[in-house]
């Protein structure tokens, strides 16, 4: 896996056939500011990839590019052989890319279970006419949606609070609700943006277990942004490090831990010589 200080450029386009996710030369500039440039990634299905880097390194920008919230200026994203570069968020959700947000974004005006049902609507959206006339097909569809939502909420330990408003939960539970909504999309690729942010140590450990479990049980490919280095070293099989919008290292946790450029990015130049 470890391909050294992989500053993968356009050459990554010639990646192995049938790779799950192929990102090549991905970059975006806002005005004069380059938020991300030349990002490359070849990810096999079922992997758990960690992404770390100092503040402003471009981690969330990368997720925004992969989920269509920001359109890339350069590069390409190919998921299972399908070019999804610059597609709209709902198209990407349909293509199997789901995410959570760094600053929790559950829907205030909807209950916990309705938050999940919004995401479930991707696969069960009745026509306006069948909705208005309350047809049997509509009702059985809604029955299925209810069952699926309850199953997901049970999995994430949220079933007891399902009728509370989406933003009326404790912090840890709101994180779990975001993950429940992401899973409701039945994604192939799940992007988690700092899921442990603001959590206490106990909650963090629970979350770590949850992510591993979801990864295992759903056979998902997961990309995980995290500042908690302990968390990421223990959860991920492979780690990419970003700094100033550039990929500076890519490899296994043990490799990343000793990588000079990573140490320099986190501790400053010369730190690894000491």
């Amino acid at each position, binding site marked *: 896996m470890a391909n050294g200080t992989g500053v993968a450029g356009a050459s990554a386009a010639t990646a192995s056939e049938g790779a799950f996710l192929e990102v090549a030369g991905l970059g975006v500039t806002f005005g004069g500011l380059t938020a991300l440039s030349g990002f490359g990634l070849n990810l096999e299905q079922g992997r758990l990839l960690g992404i770390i880097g100092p503040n402003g390194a471009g981690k969330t920008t990368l997720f925004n590019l992969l*989920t*269509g*919230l920001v359109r890339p200026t350069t590069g390409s994203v190919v998921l299972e052989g399908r070019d999804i570069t610059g597609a*709209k*968020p*709902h198209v990407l*959700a*349909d293509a199997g890319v*789901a*995410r959570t*947000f760094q600053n929790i*974004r*559950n*829907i*205030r*005006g*909807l*209950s916990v279970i*309705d*938050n999940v*049902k*919004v*995401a479930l*609507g*991707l696969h*069960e*959206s*009745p026509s*306006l006419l069948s*909705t*208005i006339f*309350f047809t*049997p097909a*509509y*009702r*059985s569809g*809604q*029955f299925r*949606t209810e069952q699926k939502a309850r199953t997901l909420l049970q999995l994430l*330990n949220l079933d*007891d*609070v399902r*009728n*509370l*408003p989406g933003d*009326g*939960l*404790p912090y*840890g*539970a709101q994180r779990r609700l975001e993950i429940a*909504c*992401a899973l*409701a*999309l039945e994604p192939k690729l799940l992007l988690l943006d700092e899921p442990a942010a603001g959590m206490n140590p106990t909650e963090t450990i629970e979350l770590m277990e949850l992510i591993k479990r979801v990864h295992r049980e759903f056979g998902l490919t997961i990309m995980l942004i995290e500042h908690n280095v302990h968390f990421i070293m223990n959860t991920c099989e492979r780690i990419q490090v970003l700094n100033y919008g550039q990929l500076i290292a890519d490899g296994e946790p043990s490799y990343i831990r000793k990588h000079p450029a990573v140490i320099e990015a986190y501790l400053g130049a010369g730190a690894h010589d000491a």
Partner: protein
Amino acid sequence: MKSIITRKNVVLLGGLVLLVILLGVADATLNNYYLRILQLIGIYIVLTASLNLTNGFTGDFSLGHAAFMAIGGYTSALLTMPLAARALQLAELPVWFQEFVSPFPLATVFGGILAAIIALPVGLVVLRLRGHYLAVATLGLLIIVKSIASNWEPVTRGARGLSGLNAETNLWWAFGWAVITIFVVWRMVHSPFGRSMIAVRDDSVAAASRGVHVFRIRLVAFIMSAFFGGVGGALLAHQLTAITPPTFSFDLTFLIVIMLVIGGSGSVTGSVIGAIIMTILPVILRDLERRFDLPGVSQIIIAAALIAFMIFRRQGLMGHRELHPSTWFMKKPATPASVDAPQQ
């Protein structure tokens, strides 16, 4: 699958029967003045409940409802106008049209459909905007529609307007359409569609990331809202029996928005309550104004009340809650306000 005979449905059916009886009694006993006020309540319920789809539930603040009313009003007026009036007013139109008179219900639906059809291209353009920008753009739509109505002489007769319509709008049509509107809006809001609308309103980025086709949801809400706006315009035209471009004024558009805000945007029952209050209150105040010989005071009182209302109860009477008949006879439902989340 639940049976259709639920407590909720029995209560709703009972309410409907009660409404029919009340309307029957009103129809038989009240004089024309009060009947017209009641009809107006029905018409304003249609308009407010439908505006709620965009302004309340999807979060697209539209000020263009009077534009869709104008489209519905003129369309239906052209379709129902009696032959004698037609020969006088629409002499420039083709002969086949001068001989074609549509029944009122059909004309009402046509008015709604044409408003909805026009809402499609309009929505494709203005829904690129959000917030204040959208509000101003929809106001622009009203200006365009009024200016067409003022200048398209052969069809709209310009400033003279269309007159001599039969007074077809009665209590039954006004409240029949009110019930249909409430039903459709309620079904839409309490469905996957409505959940998506609320998601778009509260956080469109999160909604999009959860697979909601944000633009399509907003467009459909806009078109459905326009349909009932057109229907409301048709009802109003056939209550007034004559329409001119100033009938569909800024005042009218703002009045409907005020009804919605007072009742509580984001609540179907709230929009009904708002429509009732803001129809009756000015009538009562005007009555008092005349009695005490204080012309103009009613306007000032309403304006002051609105300001006070916005300071002390910005979310409107109902906020996002619903007044649901089926819950009156049951235990109080847990209000979402109590958020002592049982953390596990």
